């Protein structure tokens, strides 16, 4: 059974269809890399799958539970979006701890510390987030999303602001989670990183999926970029 599903999923804002009848399924252990130009609706799709938006039509399901649904449906999801989703006045540790507590993680403080450690930012645990650089904040953001070991990870440009060390740490953490049975949806403009992690590849354009294939079919990054350009300019 797929962990993440979209069935004729549609979301309109006023009369503009940001997400138009999308069908999607991501099983445990799979990672779908989603590419697409700005305004294609990728962020909206992510927010629908995170239970932050209500579909206009169709269904979004996580672990068989229709979203937004009740609170329980959101338990399995970890979300990284464009903004940091952090509280600037709180420390890195407090931010991650808060997220852990909201998900009912036992021993939230030590779980938070471990999550920060995984992202190699444990030494800044007691620094207020506003005093951290954007790259550091992104590490805290990732730690916050991973602290409750989500079965479903929805990632919107998670590599933003990360340096090489940070990027590879994140990539490792994501690969590990996929091996342990999580389903990943990765929205990114970074073709190399995306293809490296992906088991499946998709391209979104004007609210619809224009391309959906296994990773093997996509070939090398350069070849894929050429095909991608053709698709979005069509």
């Amino acid at each position: 059974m797929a962990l993440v599903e979209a069935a004729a999923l549609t979301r309109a804002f006023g009369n503009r269809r940001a997400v138009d009848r999308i069908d999607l399924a991501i099983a445990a252990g799979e990672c779908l890399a989603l590419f697409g130009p700005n305004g294609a609706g990728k962020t909206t799709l992510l927010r629908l799958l995170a239970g932050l938006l209500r579909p206009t039509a169709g269904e979004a399901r996580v672990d068989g539970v229709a979203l937004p649904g009740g609170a329980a449906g959101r338990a399995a999801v970890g979300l990284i979006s464009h903004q940091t989703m952090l509280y600037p006045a709180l420390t890195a540790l407090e931010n991650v701890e808060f997220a852990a507590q909201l998900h009912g993680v036992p021993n939230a403080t030590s779980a938070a510390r471990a999550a920060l450690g995984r992202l190699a930012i444990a030494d800044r645990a007691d620094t207020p987030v506003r005093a951290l650089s954007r790259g550091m904040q992104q590490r805290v953001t990732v730690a916050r999303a991973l602290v409750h070991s989500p079965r479903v990870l929805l990632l919107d440009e998670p590599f933003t602001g990360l340096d090489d060390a940070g990027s590879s740490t994140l990539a490792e953490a994501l690969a590990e989670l996929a091996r342990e049975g999580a389903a990943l949806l990765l929205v990114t403009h970074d073709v190399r990183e995306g293809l490296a992690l992906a088991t499946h590849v998709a391209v979104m354009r004007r609210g619809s999926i224009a391309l959906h294939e296994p990773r093997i079919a996509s070939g090398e990054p350069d070849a894929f970029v050429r095909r991608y350009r053709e698709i979005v300019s069509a």
Partner: protein
Amino acid sequence: MSADLISGPTRVAVDATPREMHRLAPPSFVTATWLIARKDMIVELRTRTALLAALALSLLSIVIFNFAWDPTAVAAIDLAPGLLWVIFTFSGLLGLHRAFGVEQADRAMDTLLGAPIPRTAIYAGKALGNLALVLLVQLVSIPAALVVYNLEVARVILPLGGIALLAGIGLVAVGTLFGAMTTSTRASELLLPVLALPFFVPVVTAAAQATARLMGGRPVDETIGWLKLLAAYDIIFVFACAFAYTVIADE
């Protein structure tokens, strides 16, 4: 610093895989409410912007009105009740916008909305945080007013605290909801008072009338009528606004 801080096994301290992790029990309504309220209070105590602004407005108003007042024309005991609760309302308004503003900056709201907690817990947590702020300001303002206007403190201070609590709940119930609405629209901060003030009128009226009777040493049953109105308002609007918040938050 423990050994697992170096990038080794990527398991959390609880040592569970995602498969096992999904059997976590999400927090209850009460726990979630408390977590959010506590977080809000910590943030506010660290930044102190709303607290100081509300306190400053409140204390300055008390002082300014003292200079605008002719003690020979109006006795302090006639002026103070209305004054007290009008100032309460406006200083309360200052803090209300901030409650949801704090979530907007980096979309921290998504953490709350994406968490496995009931939406009403977000409303209740924010309202509780706002209530704490309002009561804290009143803790300073009410004694200050009593002192500045030379009113008899001992007899009234405790009942006044009770009225402040009831009035605070009413203010915060409606104000938290409208704060949520106005921060997520294009509306400027000015829209919050415009929307909220008509709703505050029964609260201010009841609180001021009850206070006036209290200070005037009137029989208790006159005061009780107003307090019942206040309590009814609180109960009805807390539930109505909690429901309204689930509609608002449901994008």
